[in-house]
């Protein structure tokens, strides 16, 4: 029996397990998935919890329900990856699992401890995150009785999971406070370490304009050094201060601690990965999928999905002794909620920034690209069903893994 071990049963790990059981001869292979958490979270849904559109139950399902019956599932923390011995040590029962091939899909998570002052007295009193279910729920409770003031949304440092989430949060906040007839009592400020509203120029311009229209103040090049919880202010390395009544923080995002313990990561515990093949840079029988990579692609579910598509084909070649093809192009496809039942869609890769145009999708689309529309909002809302029922289960999606220029307007 050949052994394939998948670390992490989140979006990437679940999708790849579902695909592999169909591609591999399960009489010859044993596949094991290890994850420390029984619950699968629909992470794109966290954004809607603070505004009461979703509750916690809407974004939680048991992991086992989405993993194929043919794979062994172990719920345990991972103590250490030992790539030189082709084995992984688990905390549970001190088990050691040997592998022939390893897939690392341990994701990324927020580490508020990285910013001094963030988790002191004001944490979950006037300082919240919405990247954890508990944080999003706590923020929802806070917002229900908030009388207004200055809301500062701060991104601590890049990269973050779902780089459009901060903008979506602000657009939805603008709409939420309007609906509650208190928009005039709320000042919205977006303090970002980036030099514009978004990382890519054309989209940054469009989204920047929208911030202005919605009277959301943009503070660029703000690199947070610390939070002063007594003065209720965020302080930058170059001594700027922004006071807040409510701070919504997107703290530093890092890869799993086990990557650091195993000496396999960069300074943020992301695993050095070959950009176009998804093989671990330093190991020939290890692949890295989803947020765990150090790649300059977005940390997003759509990216994990496209990665899994190209990985499966490449892995089959690899097992046959053929070389890996450079087929991963950094493709990302993201709906951006813009409030009042409208949304944007952006589609891009390593080399092509988000462009305006129309995005063809058989049966449902087309969706307008980089432009507000109601259809895009419904695309996002429908996506939760698609996620649980199609995407995770590894069924065919009507979007090609590689980005296509079809429908995009070039200048």
């Amino acid at each position, binding site marked *: 029996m050949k052994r394939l071990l998948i670390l992490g049963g989140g979006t990437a790990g679940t999708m790849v397990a579902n695909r592999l059981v169909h591609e591999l001869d399960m009489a010859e292979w044993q596949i094991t998935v290890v994850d420390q958490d029984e619950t699968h979270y629909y992470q794109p849904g966290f954004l809607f919890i603070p505004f009461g559109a979703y509750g916690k139950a809407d974004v939680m399902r048991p992991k086992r329900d989405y993993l194929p019956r043919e794979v062994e599932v172990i719920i345990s923390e991972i103590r250490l990856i030992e790539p030189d011995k082709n084995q992984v040590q688990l905390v549970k029962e001190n088990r050691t699992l040997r592998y022939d091939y390893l897939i690392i899909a341990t994701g990324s998570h927020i580490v508020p401890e990285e910013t001094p002052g963030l988790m002191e007295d004001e944490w979950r009193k006037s300082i919240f995150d919405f990247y954890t279910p508990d944080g999003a729920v706590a923020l929802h409770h806070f917002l229900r009785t908030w009388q207004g003031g200055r809301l500062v949304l701060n991104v601590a*440092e*890049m*990269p973050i999971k779902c*780089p459009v989430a901060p903008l979506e949060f602000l657009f939805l906040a603008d709409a939420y406070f309007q609906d509650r007839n208190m928009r005039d009592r709320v000042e919205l400020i977006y303090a970002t370490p*980036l*030099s514009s509203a978004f*990382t*890519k120029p054309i989209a940054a311009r469009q989204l920047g304009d929208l911030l202005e229209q919605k009277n959301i103040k943009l503070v660029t*090049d703000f*690199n947070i*050094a610390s939070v002063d919880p007594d003065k209720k202010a965020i302080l930058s*390395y*170059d001594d700027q201060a922004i006071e807040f009544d409510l701070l919504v923080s997107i703290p530093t995002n890092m890869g799993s601690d086990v990557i650091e313990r195993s000496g396999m990561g*960069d*300074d*943020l515990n992301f695993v050095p990965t070959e950009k176009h093949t998804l093989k671990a840079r330093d190991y020939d029988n290890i692949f890295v999928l989803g947020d765990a990579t150090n790649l*300059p*692609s*977005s940390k997003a579910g759509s990216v994990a999905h496209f990665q899994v598509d190209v990985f499966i084909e490449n892995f089959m070649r690899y097992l046959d002794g053929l070389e890996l093809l450079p087929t991963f192009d950094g493709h*990302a496809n993201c709906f951006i909620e813009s409030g009042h039942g409208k949304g944007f869609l952006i589609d891009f890769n390593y080399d092509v920034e988000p462009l305006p145009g129309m995005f063809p999708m058989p049966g449902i689309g087309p969706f307008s690209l980089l432009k507000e529309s109601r259809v895009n909002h419904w695309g996002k809302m429908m996506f939760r069903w698609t996620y649980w029922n199609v995407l995770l289960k590894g069924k065919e999606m009507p979007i090609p893994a590689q980005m296509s220029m079809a429908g995009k307007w070039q200048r």
Partner: protein
Amino acid sequence: MLTKELNVALDAEGFMTDPSQWTPEIAEMMAVEEGIAPLTERHWQVINWVRQEAASSGEFPSLRAISKRSGVDTKELYELFPKGPARKIARCAGYPKPKGCI
């Protein structure tokens, strides 16, 4: 721009496109353009470490990596290279603009 006189390839934003063309004189000229000249020993510690790291790893280090391992912490990096240290360090060290992650 001053650096044009040195006959090295620059992109539209004034970053060098080929780090192998770099010389210490270029760093000094970039520093003038960035308004941080003259370069001190502390600046050079950062620039030299970054060039060494980028050459050995093949990738320009993140600000976090620089502050962790160059011997100059984040606070001082912002004093030495105010307003956007990553970009200023990249220019002085002769590397393309660091790709802000997406």
